[in-house]
């Protein structure tokens, strides 16, 4: 029997190319290369051919089989790629639909600021001290150079529990408690953030409960220049490296000399704006620890000096997040809180 190898190859390749699906391709493959396929059958005839025809026939048949196998494999790959492309096209989604929501928690803005303050001072070698909010009058006032009839008690109307026990009006009593616990070891180097209370009505800038952070360094040779430098470093880390600070004379019974520390306003960079007015913002009340306070704390003012400062955390928070009403900090409206993810 005479085989038209050229014709056969053309037909087979046309069928392979014409297969549109993997199933069709498989049909074609079986028709030619399957156990009963055209090519397989042709090869089976090989033994029956005269010996002189066998080599030529075998070469033709094997070449055809090899060529077809390759063609089928190529076509299969093509079909698979097409099918995947089609499937992916079908799976396309509207990418603008919202993602599955994660339940978002948040940290209170005031505590965020408190954490930032702590981080800065921890970096400068300070530890975080704590003291009771319900405090003895003695620690809150007397030990801080504010006897019963001292005029500066006027400015701090206190909430009393008994004659001798009150809600602390400032974080400064922690100074005394820390010194008494530490004496005579040096240095005393702490900050003390916490709640304080005064007999104030609640309005956009006042509250009977608010927050301060106290700072205290007692050591040999501590100076007012160190105080300024320390708070300058703090202000620069908090507000940015361009921040400048200045000390203005002030008065606190438990520090002397006393000062207000102003920092250039972070909102306008010190040019003056509606928040700061002059370009400067009061940041801390501060001063050199009064010798009598050192003595109460158990230190000899001839041997050591110290500085102390106090800052309003609520104010820092309001400034940082541009909050204009203090009451928002205590209302706990989740529409407010959840802005601080």
């Amino acid at each position: 029997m005479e085989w038209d190898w050229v014709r056969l190859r053309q037909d087979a390749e046309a069928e392979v190319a014409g297969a549109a699906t993997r199933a069709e391709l498989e049909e074609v493959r079986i028709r030619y290369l399957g156990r009963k396929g055209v090519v397989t059958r042709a090869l089976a005839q090989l033994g029956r051919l005269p010996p002189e025809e066998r080599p030529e026939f075998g070469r033709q048949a094997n070449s055809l089989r090899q060529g077809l196998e390759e063609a089928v494999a190529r076509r299969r790959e093509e079909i698979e790629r097409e099918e995947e492309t089609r499937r992916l096209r079908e799976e396309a989604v509207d990418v603008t639909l919202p993602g599955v929501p994660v339940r978002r928690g948040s940290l209170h803005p005031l505590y965020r600021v408190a954490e930032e303050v702590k981080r800065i001072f921890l970096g400068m070698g300070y530890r975080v001290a704590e003291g009771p909010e319900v405090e003895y009058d003695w620690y809150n006032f007397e030990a801080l150079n504010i006897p019963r009839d001292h005029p500066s008690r006027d400015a701090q109307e206190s909430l009393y529990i008994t004659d001798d026990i009150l809600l602390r009006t400032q974080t400064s009593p922690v100074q005394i408690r820390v010194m008494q616990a530490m004496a005579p070891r040096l240095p005393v180097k702490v900050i003390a953030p916490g709640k304080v209370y005064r007999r104030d009505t609640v309005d956009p800038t006042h509250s009977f409960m608010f927050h301060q952070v106290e700072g205290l360094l007692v050591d040999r040779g501590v100076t007012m220049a160190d105080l300024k430098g320390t708070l300058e470093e703090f202000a620069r880390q908090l507000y940015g490296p361009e921040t400048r600070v200045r000390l203005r004379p002030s008065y606190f019974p438990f520090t002397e000399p006393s000062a207000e520390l102003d920092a250039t306003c972070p909102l306008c960079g010190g040019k003056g704006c509606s928040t700061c007015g002059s370009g400067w913002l009061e940041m801390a009340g501060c001063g050199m620890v009064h010798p009598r306070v050192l003595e109460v704390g158990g230190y000899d003012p001839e041997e050591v000096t110290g500085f102390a400062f106090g800052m309003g955390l609520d104010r820092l928070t309001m400034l940082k997040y541009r909050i204009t009403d203090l009451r928002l900090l205590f209302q706990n409206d989740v529409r407010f809180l959840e802005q601080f993810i």
Partner: protein
Amino acid sequence: MRVPMAWLREYVDIPWDAGELAERLTWAGLKVESVEEVGEELAGLVAARILEIRPHPRSPGLWLCRLEDGEAVRQVVTGAPGLAAGQVVAYARPGGVLPGGRRLGRERFGGELSEGMMLAATELVLGEEHREGEGVLVLPAEVTPGTDLVRYFPLRDTVLELELTVNYATHCQSILGVAREVASLTGGRVRLPAVFARDYQPGLPAGEDAHGEAARITSVRVEDGDLCPRYTALVLEDVRPAFSPVPVQFRLHAAGMRPLSAVVDVTNYVMLELGQPLHAFDLDRLEERRIVVRRAREGERLRTLDGRDRELDGEMLVIADAVRPVALAGVMGGEETEVTPATRRVLMEAAWFHPVSVRRTSRRLGLRTGAAARFEKGIDPAAVLAASRRACSLLEEMGVARLVSGSVDVRPSGYGARQASLRPARVGAVLGLDIPESEIAGALGRLGFGVDTTGGESWRVTVPTWRADVVGEIDLIEEVARLHGYQRIPSTLPTGSPATGYLTREQRLTARAREILAAAGLAEALTFSLIAPDAFDRLGLGGDDPRRRALTVRNPLSVEWSVLRTSLLPGLLACLAHNQAHRVPRAGLFEVSAVYLPGELPPRELPSERLYAAAAAYGPWRDPHWRGDSPEVDYFLLKGVVEYLLDALGVGPVEFTPSGEPFLHPGRQARITCGEHLLGVVGELHPRVARAYELQGRVAAWELDFSTVLALATEDRRYRPLPRYPAVTRDVAFMLADHIPAARAEEVIRRHGGALLESLRLFDVFRGEGILPGHRSLAYSLVYRSPDKTLTDREVDEVHAGVRRALEVELGATLR
């Protein structure tokens, strides 16, 4: 403290304008709060000559006046009596503006045109209706009509408003005090009124001086010298009722005080000027015309100048006459002895009262007066009598009284300049900058301190009597610092003993807990530590519930915030209610903060401030979403948060057992324990409590004693090797009576699963078809694994069969 610049300039030369002066004073520690122009609005106030005056043709009691005001001849209708042609009077032209902004125009009275207005001093100075008995202000006849009165008197000034700190209030509550500060900045000298300078007595011993006419007319006895170290009296005769000259009235007004009568005005004027409070008594209304300074007696009363009856107590110092109190020492005079138009003789009191005594009286009676504000900060004892003489001489100059000779001066204590020592080296050591010794001495000298530097390392410094605030070396260092300039202090960083900053374990874990709760989807809240007393009722706590033992603020501003919380939940629930009231669809809050647990009540010791953690939530756990809605907050959602928190803090094993909190749903609450430690509770809010807080829908909450949690927490984490052999999973489903908690079943499964049971997970709870009433079906997935070999089916089957059998035998479960 208000300081009119023109007044200040009488005392000291000022090379600066108001703005620069304010700046320099602020930097020296006298904070200038504002700079205000007084009298800026005034216009059209001039001198005018009366050309003619005749009765109003139709209105009896009114006159028609023709005036020449330098610009025009005008007609004014007036009711003022006693005017005559030829007089020069104060006049506001039509279009003129009075203090406070009132603009004058043209009007008709009884058909007659009236242009502008003739003015009494009160109208001119305050812009207010003239006082009783006060007529039109008549000027000296030589004043030219048209003269601008604002310049003539003057009636315009720049006023600095000082916000004085407590220490500077001792010596800066007067024009003189501020002038001294200005002089220390300029290096100039203070000009004192001649009388004051002559009678200023830098130091005097204790004793009594009574001489001259004054001593014959009156006497002073100080019974309580501890509260009154010095009391002086001068006597004025031939007193006649009068108003002060316009310049005096204007200065009082500019400084923030009201002009009254000449005698009272002068006492105020001198107090503002020199810082010495004075009081004028009507001498003839003092019983036996004498003064006794003593503590009030029980039951004594006094009607003070403000017309109020005051009950006095034995700690208050009073000025009495022979029989009764007539003034509160250093605070306010009494009505019965005040100076009136009928007064003919005045006893002028100038004294030095004890600061604390004045302060106590003033506070107890709620009477804050200029006198009290000065006495309670400490006045200059050397200026007492000199200031009194200055006042009397002013009254003589005004022609309203005559000072009799002599004085009474009783001094239970002496006074004089005090000494302090200063080591100049200490200045630099405290401030951190080098100031040459000459500059230190110079600064103190300019502030009026006497400096004796012969000691070398330690100087003797004489403190002027007006500086009651300066006691020790550190006060002197502060004086040097502020005069040298705080701006000149450099910035350095401390170079002392080494120190490391770190957080304690509790601080670290608390911060971690807050981050975990935020990560769990809750918003951190910050609530007030004070709650309302009815909070415990709202929670429905029993009468003997320990949480009712709470501290109460004695003097709260509002009862809403008067009790120190013993639980965080009332605060959080109120916040949830706030959110619901604002139609916030879902809220989940947490707080980690202190509660205040008292020991005995009333307390003698401080309460225990324990750190608690709490959470409360309502609404869908997530916002509604197109992929399906979220579960609503319930017991299990908040239990999951607690489990996450405790797990993350390494606290366990934790058990949840049914509990009986009155404020929680009786069937949906659990006590949280770890071993024998009670950690807290979790549950859904009792509907009754939800109603009490006006909360709608399911609310779930938990509260933990976080101090206990912290004690049990561990940061230890040990690596467990990853499994090397495959696991075999077997499910078991069974029907169990409702009264047997799932935790029992789990315990049975674990016990019988033994070492091969790696984990178990409840994946279905089912009631309904095929399940007996009072029962539910539980389905668990159990994972078996051995750490050292691949388990065969047979090995697993054997253990699993044991688990199934045990559920049947021990719990009466029906396997499904």
